[in-house]
């Protein structure tokens, strides 16, 4: 049953790709499901509304007192009511249990393996975004509550080995690579069950120094609050290069409107010579290389 529903939802004729919802163009894998859901629901809403409005128009014209002075107390047959409610309930049940919940649970469930993903720590603060990458060794520098200070807000231990090669880019500038996945090593980019090319997933650990912010990247169809005292991971699979707006989606003070940021999905194919030898690392790696922290616990751009 469940499968049948899921199947139905997958093949619903609603995943048209022309955009009638005015959403920004899509750049993530799970976003395709988000869009299908949005379009499906809005389509159903539209039908419901048109149906009702049409009925309303007819009723008002037919039964205006001038034309129909003597009201008929009998009223409509119950079956009409049952049908209408039935349709609405069915529609909602299918959307909820067939589409919305399964898709969301699936999305939460396929949390990627951190070693196989691009991992970023993003820390929100009034009114900007700090990012930090683990660097070559894939390990973030050690942290210590006691070291927290204005210059070192996350209490990174200065000169910590693992921390030396961490990468701290300028504020508001977060970048992730668009790397084709080739797990089976056949030199071909892997594809998922529905034949869609797979790219290296991204994991972002979100937290905040001061008040609640929210990390929303509409083109990626992600939105997650950054809550002080909590570190919350979100993940997505970028599917196309581009520079995308990060919106702060939670009122965070008088600078809230200015708390824009940019998340850039960039190419990371190494530059090769004619014979195929790598002559230069990919654009993303080069970018990272230029922001290694070194001994400073934290580069501050403020």
């Amino acid at each position, binding site marked *: 049953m469940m499968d049948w529903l899921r199947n139905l939802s997958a093949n619903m004729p609603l995943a048209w790709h022309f955009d009638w919802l005015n959403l920004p163009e899509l750049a993530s894998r799970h976003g395709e499901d988000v869009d299908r859901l949005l379009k499906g629901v809005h389509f159903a809403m539209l039908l419901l509304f048109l149906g009702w409005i049409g009925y309303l128009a007819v009723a008002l014209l037919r039964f205006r007192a001038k034309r129909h002075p003597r009201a008929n107390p009998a009223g409509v047959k119950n079956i009409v009511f049952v049908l209408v409610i039935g349709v609405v309930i069915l529609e*909602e049940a299918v959307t909820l249990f067939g589409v919305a919940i399964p898709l*969301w649970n699936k999305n939460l469930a396929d949390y990627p393996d951190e070693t196989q993903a691009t991992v970023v720590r993003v820390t929100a603060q009034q009114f900007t975004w700090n990012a930090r990458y683990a660097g070559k060794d894939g390990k973030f520098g050690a942290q210590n509550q006691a070291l927290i200070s204005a210059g070192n807000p996350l209490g990174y231990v200065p000169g910590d080995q693992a921390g030396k090669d961490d990468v701290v880019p300028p504020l508001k500038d977060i970048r992730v690579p668009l790397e084709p996945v080739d797990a089976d090593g056949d030199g071909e980019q892997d594809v998922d069950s529905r034949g869609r090319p797979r790219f290296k997933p991204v994991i972002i650990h979100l937290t905040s120094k001061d008040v609640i912010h929210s990390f929303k990247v509409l083109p990626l169809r992600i939105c997650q609050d950054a809550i002080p005292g909590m570190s919350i991971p979100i993940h997505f699979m970028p599917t196309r290069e581009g520079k995308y707006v990060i*919106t702060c989606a939670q009122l965070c003070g008088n600078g809230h409107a200015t708390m824009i940021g940019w998340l850039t999905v960039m190419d990371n194919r190494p530059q090769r010579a004619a014979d195929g030898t790598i002559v230069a690392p990919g654009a993303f790696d080069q970018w990272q290389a230029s922001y290694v922290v070194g001994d400073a616990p934290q580069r501050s751009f403020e």
Partner: protein
Amino acid sequence: MSSHEPGLIRKYIFSTDHKVIGIQYALTSLAFLFIGLMLMLLMRWQLANPGQPVPIVGGALEGLLGEPAGEGKISADLYNSFGAMHGTIMIFLGVVPLVFGAFANYLVPLQVGAADMAFPKLNMLSYFLYLIGGVIMLVSFFVPGGAAQAGWTSYPPLATIIPTDGQTYWLVAMVFLITSSLLGSINIIVTVMQLRVPGLTWMRLPFFVWSEFVTAFLLLLAFPPMEAGAILQLMDRLAGTSFYMPHGLILSGQPATGLSGGGSPLLWQHLFWFLGHPEVYVLILPAMGIVTEVIANNTRKPIWGYRALVGSALAIGFLSMVVWAHHMYVTGMGTGISMFFQTTTTIISIPSVIIMTCLMLSLWGGAIRFTVPMLFAIAFLPMFGIGGLTGLPLAFTMADVALHDSYYIIGHFHYVVAPGTIFAVFAGIYYWFPKVTGRHMNRGLGYLHFWGSLVCMNLIFFPMLFQGLGGMGRRMSDGGYIYSAAHPSNEGVIGSLSDAVVQLNGVIAWSALALAAFQLPFIYNFFYSAFAGRPVENDNPWQATTLEWQTPTPPPHGNFTQEMFVYREPYAYSLHANEPAGRAPESSATAGEFVDFEAQNQPLGAAVTTEMPANQASIL
């Protein structure tokens, strides 16, 4: 009851008569609605022309509010104050006191045939608590730092660390308002439970009474948790506790060593939304009640599926207690919890659909009189429809991530509260005005008010849905300028706001201004008709069935001149329409006059004549 006439002050200010208190509530809350409207205009101006000095009133603003309004411009701080206060005032000081304080106070005792509320003194007290709360709220505009700036939701840590006493005033005011509505709801519930006249069984109650009854329970049970939340936030602000302050906060660059930490920002969100969601049904249920009364009366036929209505109202009452976290989908909740709240949220939409459907079906076969109240009531249906339907995508976490905190939300709930609840309120005012004042409101001005408001409301709120989908965030003090594609730093940035989306701010601003302008005929009509309107031809000008119309106009102290007894269901309209013409029942009409209804207190077995009425022309 008391034989001697009380003095003027006791009669009009410290009165314990539910009708006087109802009118006090009405005037006060309408005044607050008006303030909320003005705040909204200022906000819309700022959104359309970020950073431009406000025309005409700019100077006055600076004079009143000082530095935040420097050069007559609306600073970000001021904008946030306006946003928070618009929301707070509209909901807690405008609509709730209007639909619950005013309408319930005035009508429920009349409709259940009671002489007054169960606890008249308590009733007076709750009005004055409301007034005090309102005054504190207004005063907070003028304290150092200005009014609350953390949104009507007042999320800590922001609300706690924000450098203005306004937030403290907000909390204190809320405690007053909450106490007020607690007393009010106890009063309503007891009145309905205890004071129904003989014969008025539960299933003979007008649906309006049912809606207010359920509303009262929502207020009674959902407000206390928020009161608890407010107390804790007060402690955080005044006693330096850390209920909502986690460990390791870094405030303006410095570790907050003064604080113990160990609290949780999410705790507030749970306490707030446990009220917050039932609150939104407090805004809509009475509106549905009003619309039901008006539709029944103006279609001249019984409401379709009365029992379904009652059942749905109760269902909404229960369910609205278990959906609150659908406002917190993006705080990072696990699969189980989000499944639970997605399901409950979807389920709760069903009773609303049922109510809407019953009301729509009630139109079928009626003899619809397009009176001014009826126009507002009819418009309520599709308008609430849009608002409600746009709630559905929000109910699904998967879709909400794209819509959360965008103008889509603003569009969603304004469709429900503005052309929804506010229209229902207008319908109610036009409908019961004759009973309260003994005079009709001017119909021409009414039509002007209606069509103007209908068009403008849609010009304002429909574009918001479009903006929201396009990525326009709410609570942006610059109307999204920083995010616009036009902004130099957004060269070729995907997801920046297209010109179309941004320019809509202009359309909305002008429509908002027009909307405000279309309220003027109403305000004039309201006050003019109260003193010089066309006097009602009899006590029951709309030929309605419910008890409030079976008393002198306006109802005397003690409401009813003779003992009441109820013989039948609330909406006995046209029940004899297909019978041959017969005698007119003695009680409610003089022989020969057209009567297509039987009042609830009219003895059984009276047949009805059915010629086209002479005096109905005056209503058509």
